């Protein structure tokens, strides 16, 4: 796929002054090939049920390139890509758009993978922040004791 574009686009954007836009979702569900809209909907539904904010292109058959550009434009951190091959294997590709990494995961493990990568469910942002801070404090105090 068009992975080679990934490192290039953010750099271009930074040169243009960077984007101040806050992303409205954590995950964009994208697809490759014709007539995959319903597959995108199914994946998005999976994420919505897990309280993960996600969106898909509202066009029937958008180009992957356009979907990618849109996600980068809006500073969205993660992207899920599904194509014919993945569909058959019941997997999907998860891209971390910030770190420019990509991995293939079974759809059954999708939510768990995303959570592990740091996606916080909607409405839990502050609680998550608090938990992280508490964990850090704990670590420092342990270090000090040692």
């Amino acid at each position, binding site marked *: 796929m068009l992975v080679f574009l990934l490192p290039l686009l953010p750099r271009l954007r930074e040169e243009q002054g960077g984007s101040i836009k806050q992303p*409205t*979702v954590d995950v964009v569900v994208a697809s490759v090939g014709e007539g995959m*809209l*319903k*597959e995108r*909907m*199914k994946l*998005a*539904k999976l*994420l*919505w049920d897990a*309280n*993960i*904010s*996600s*969106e898909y292109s*509202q*066009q*029937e058959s958008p180009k992957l390139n356009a979907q990618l550009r849109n996600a980068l434009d809006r500073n969205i951190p993660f992207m899920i890509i599904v194509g014919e091959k993945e569909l058959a294997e019941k997997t999907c590709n998860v891209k971390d758009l910030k770190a420019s990494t990509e991995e293939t995961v079974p759809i059954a493990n999708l939510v768990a993978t995303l959570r592990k990568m740091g996606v916080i469910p*909607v*409405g839990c942002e502050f609680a998550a922040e608090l938990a992280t801070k508490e964990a850090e404090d704990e670590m420092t105090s342990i270090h000090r004791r040692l």
Partner: protein
Amino acid sequence: MTIANSICIGKGRRITLKELQEMCLYDATAEWFQPSEGGDLEVSEFFVVDRAIMLERVQFFHSQRSEVEKTLSKAETIAALTILALGISQGRLFPPTKKHEEVHLTQALLILVQAIKRAPNADLNLSTSVPSFLGSLQFFLLKSPGKEPSCYSHELLDETIVHSPMSEIVARVIWMAQISLATMQAYDLALAGLVMGILSIEREGQAKKRLGDYSEKKFDIMRPHRGLIEAATAIRAILNGSRYVPPNDAVVSEEAMQALKNLPQYHGPAQDSIRAAHKTIELELNCFESSLQDVLDRTVAELAVKQVQDSVLVLSRASLTRCNNKGVKSTPTSLMEAVVQLEASLKQEAQLDCEFIQEQVAKAEEESRQKNAERAARAATAAGTQRPVGKDEFAGMSAAKKSKILEVRKKKEANAAAKKKVKDSKGLSLFGTGTQPLVDILVKHNYDLRNPCLDEIQTEVEKLLSGGVQRKPKIPKGTRDFLPEQMAIRQKAFSIIRRVFQSHGAVEIDTPVFELKDTLTGKYGEDSKLIYDLADQGGELLALRYDLTVPFARFLALNSVGNIKRFHIGKVYRRDQPALSKGRYREFYQCDFDIAGIYGQMVPDSECVCVVCEILDALPIGNFVIKINHRCLLDAVLDLCGVPAEKFRSICSSVDKLDKEPWEAVKKEMVEEKGLIAEVADKIGEFVLNKGEPMTMYQALMDSKRFANNEGAMRAMEDLRILFEYLEAMDKLKFLSFDLSLARGLDYYTGVIYEAVCMSGNTQVGSIGGGGRYDKLVSMFQEAGKQTPCVGVSVGIERVFTLMEAK
């Protein structure tokens, strides 16, 4: 209302009638508020004119002053000067076109303001005729001592204006000054009139019996006219507790009795119409010609003046009647005269009432003093017999016991004294709670019906109305307070809803609760009559928002944000008949989710339905069903059945009632009220009674070929098929029911429509949300040719609260 002592006039500054009055009759002064930029006030040599020449000119005008001319009162003179200065300061009367002209204006203005400031202490009574008005003004300015700017070359003070349109402008200013002051006085006196009427009721001595005539039932419910209600409320508040009954009934004539009985019925409307006219004139006061060639038409103000004059006449006649005065009732020829007449008659009435009331109070006091003296005497003799003096009743008791008995006795006496005090104070309030303070104010100011007396009366009446035990607190119809526990439930519901909206990547917006009235009119069909219209504020015509969709459409057209997926949680207002058990309030929350922009067919539509399903699924409200239909399908059905196009909307609203009423009732309404042929109605019935599982319904309808080849219907069916497929993919189809009777009342829907209803078993217990596609609404606010298709859904949270509270 308190008014600052100096009143600014300046660009963009409006003055109220009250301020004008303060300036003219009382001690407020005018200050010219000068904008910071470009106004050094140095008098340049260029404009300085020979003083001698000016004097000569002025004297010419002054000499032209004829004997028969009427002069303005001092107050009217100041008012006229103020209005003139106001006009110039707004940059209107002489719009400055060049820099030096602006300086010119500044100077003219300075002169005027100085004149206004000096006028109260000077003998400045200008004439009502334009030439001598201006002439005397200049004369006054020139002969006054001091080092005021000596530049009078401005055209305002030039003789040529006498023959130009300027003279008409000045004539209007003079007239405005007169009517403004008179209107303001009428406005003040209207309240005084009510107070006098109330005091006269006391004088008549039937207040206690009369309260029924002014009851809440009689006005608030049976005749809910604003003025009537207000007057009756004031009467009730002031007269509350009155118990004076005259020794013999014949204190007032039959005629006066009638006038007192009907006090709210003529006083309310008169006060109301004076208030309306007051608003008009206040607005007119701040309007000026845009150039010297323009003379404003006087009709607006003239009509208002007529209104005030008529109302004042009603009030003054009523006042005379209440005083048993059968004298000649002359008809005033002008507003000014009418106001003077009203003031005189009210003063007479005030005197009559207050003297009478004071007399009665004194008499009552005297009586109660006598009674007290008698009682004291009786008590003394009683005590004398009971407790023989000199005999020690405590003989043989221990000191401790003795002191205890004495203490108890002391306490008893103190209690009795306290009780007596309460009784005494009650005994004195022969008249209503408000009567005595009002009488005191009137007497203190010697019945001078002007400020500060009127101000004090107004404050007193407001105090009586706003508080105290007399008034049961009420909440407006169809609204409610939220207690902390209820707020907790509401907060919970909102956080669930917000979470779903945000997980779909929607952004939040807010819009004002009121919109321009024309933004809202013509968008809601038959429901338009339920819009809350805000009373005329003397400016823009406003209305409270009826839903969040139309404001959103206006928002889109105004802000050109392009494609947007937004949510909006806010209160909306509908003047519906409230049904609290059904969760129908007049003020309630709506939670809207809309997608604007051109996208794939039915893609955003399916997301909207998905969102409402997710929300209702997450809220603890039990089972629900989403009924779905298509506006075009409905139109096609009506068309196929042979309903004439102009009846579509009204038949639609009948069909929409099918969820609450049986088919027979709906059919009856269509045939009898909307004039449909019975066979046509039956044909409609064959269609709209169909509902069921979406895909099965779709197949059945397609197989039966009942839509023949109706193009609209086919397109609608195709839309629905795609929608169902998408919803299947999102696993939401299980909540759906394809219902051909669903119509949604609002006019603006153009495509798929849906409504969420709560179910209890198999019966439907109320709608909790709905929405649909409205492709043409935004273009109503945009320039021709542009289109922003939109689709949205709205969740009515009130019903959800009721359901959640029940749990």
